[in-house]
């Protein structure tokens, strides 16, 4: 099984046991770099796949919560290289497949070949790059797929149907269905979610996970009617911000 297929199968395994798969998002090294691995292990003990956010100076697709966490992590010296070093130190100890969410520039600066090598070694099986649309992604995709890693495509309610099909076909690991037209950290899900998520799921042969605006158990249940998984970002980062243990919060979601 290639690395990106491991992401698919982790999500499917949750569904097979009667649950909506949970994909928690944490900003790497937030709120304290020294607690990164502890937090990651705690989150990974509940999550089926864990999304690790790479802090960036210009998080254009993110709302205040993730902007703030990104800024603090950068201030405290978190970098992609540091994150890989930390992940290497616990290699084999985390069961859930990891994916990274990063804006393009830190990946460009790291170099695509080096990135793919380090990712495979560290158990990072997929990448989500919010400012890299399909038309610009060939180079990164090739570097990742040469190692069996996946580039996860995002689709949104604004995506036209013909494009939706192209993006679903290109996506590896899962398809990231953005629930709203807007940035992360929204307070509620739109009411016409059913048609949209059903449409995305019908185009995809791999699992679809919905993200943006998912804060509570009822949100996870709402998207779980139509798609395989739910991504919880800003709400979880708020829990980390308050210094609480993320585990009970995540356990209460499914």
């Amino acid at each position, binding site marked *: 099984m290639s690395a990106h297929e491991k992401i698919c199968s982790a999500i499917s395994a949750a569904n097979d046991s009667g649950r909506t798969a949970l994909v928690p998002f944490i900003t790497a090294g937030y709120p304290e770099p020294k607690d990164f691995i502890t937090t990651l292990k705690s989150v990974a003990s509940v999550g089926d796949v864990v999304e690790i956010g790479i802090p960036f100076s210009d998080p254009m697709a993110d709302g205040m919560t993730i902007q703030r966490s990104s800024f603090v992590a950068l201030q405290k010296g978190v970098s992609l290289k540091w994150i890989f070093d930390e992940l290497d130190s616990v290699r084999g100890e985390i069961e859930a497949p990891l994916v990274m969410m990063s*804006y393009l520039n830190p*990946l460009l*600066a790291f170099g695509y070949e080096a990135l793919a090598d380090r990712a495979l070694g560290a158990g990072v099986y997929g990448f989500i790059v919010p*400012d890299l649309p399909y038309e610009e992604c060939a180079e990164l995709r090739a570097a990742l797929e040469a190692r069996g890693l996946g580039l996860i495509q995002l689709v949104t309610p*604004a*995506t036209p149907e013909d494009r939706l099909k192209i993006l679903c076909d290109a996506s590896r690991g899962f398809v990231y269905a*953005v629930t709203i037209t807007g940035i992360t950290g929204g307070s509620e899900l739109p009411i016409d979610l059913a048609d949209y998520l059903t449409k995305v799921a019908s185009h995809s042969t791999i699992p679809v996970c919905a993200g943006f605006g998912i804060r509570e158990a009822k949100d996870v249940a709402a998207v779980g009617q139509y798609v395989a998984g739910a991504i919880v970002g800003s709400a979880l980062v708020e829990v980390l911000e308050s210094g609480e243990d993320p585990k009970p919060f995540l356990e209460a979601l499914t």
Partner: protein
Amino acid sequence: MSTLLTAEEARKLLDAAINGNLPDERGRFGPFGGRYVSETLVPAFDRLEAGVKEHLHSSSFKAELQKELREWVGRPTALSFAPRLSEAWGAEVWIKREDLAHTGAHKINNAIGQALLAKRIGAKRVIAETGAGQHGVASAAACARVGLPCRVFMGAVDMERQAPNVDRIRRLGAEVIAVETGDKTLRAAIDEAMREWVTDPDGIYYLLGSAVGAHPYPYLVRELQSVIGAEARQQMLDQAGGLPDAAFACVGGGSNAIGLFYPLIGDDIELIGVEAGGIGDGLGENAATLATGTPGVLQGSYTIILQDDDGQVQETQSISAGLDYSGVGPEHALLQATGRVKYISARDNEALEALEELCAMEGMLTALETSHAFAAAREYAKQNPGKRILIGNSGRGDKDMPTLTKYPARIR
């Protein structure tokens, strides 16, 4: 992604630029440019690109724009010979007077063009970012003129140093949103405008103010600003009896510079872009992107940016809000890589001195941004006596009074 061009590649790309074949259909100026935007905005960019293709060069749009430029903006702007500066510098100095355009800067050329385009493609409202406030003022005025609501994002730092423009924007009927995130200057204002745009990609038209960002903005803004260089070229022939030896423009994002340079790139003229040298050469002490930056993706475009080894974008420093930006338009990145345009920098104090000299010698209070171009031109004149020099005077300096009052005038 290598950006080092071989001599052969550079020559081919420069030919393509001169022949009007750039950007290519993917929005690339050679290796630079492109469209790095979130998936939510892809359909909006597709619509914008289709709108640009349909209208920008159509005869009805051109006629409408020409009429507005003539009757409302006040074009053509004057080309002024500068007799006293010429004598002092030992050169023949000509100044292209964008400060005389409506609202006081070149920004209006782009703002009215895009506002007319927004109307044609059926936008319900307009958003814009602003650094020095000139683009905010121009956008507010243009939107009032065409009858579209307008919201302007402005960094909190810039709101303080360009306070007169904040009030002007509001009086022109636009809403000003203070940006407290990121570096609280132009870059943060663009980020925040993009965040607003994704909330309603169908209804909002984003009126971007510089030749930066994702395709088609660098192209669209260049086309609308090229009126500067096209007029200046003809005026030099008519008034000076020939083209200049060298032309200077300040470069932040680079809209006035590309507007002046683009119609001149096929001529035998030295073209020199002047960035903000701030207070020193260290990372974070200036906004000299092309002089000290490296290739990367910022705000939708692969271009030269100020960043650290980890790809984190660095904050900048400049006395002028309009040049205080960590990126630069992708076409400038290409013009530098091909060697066609030389990019240098002038420091805060040099810009201030140049501003005072221009006031005292020619009776023009120019913008702090523009003053950087004058500072570099003066230095060039010193090294190259007897040259004919054209300077793009991109805007007037009234907006800078809150900053200038902190520095006592040294020339009496």
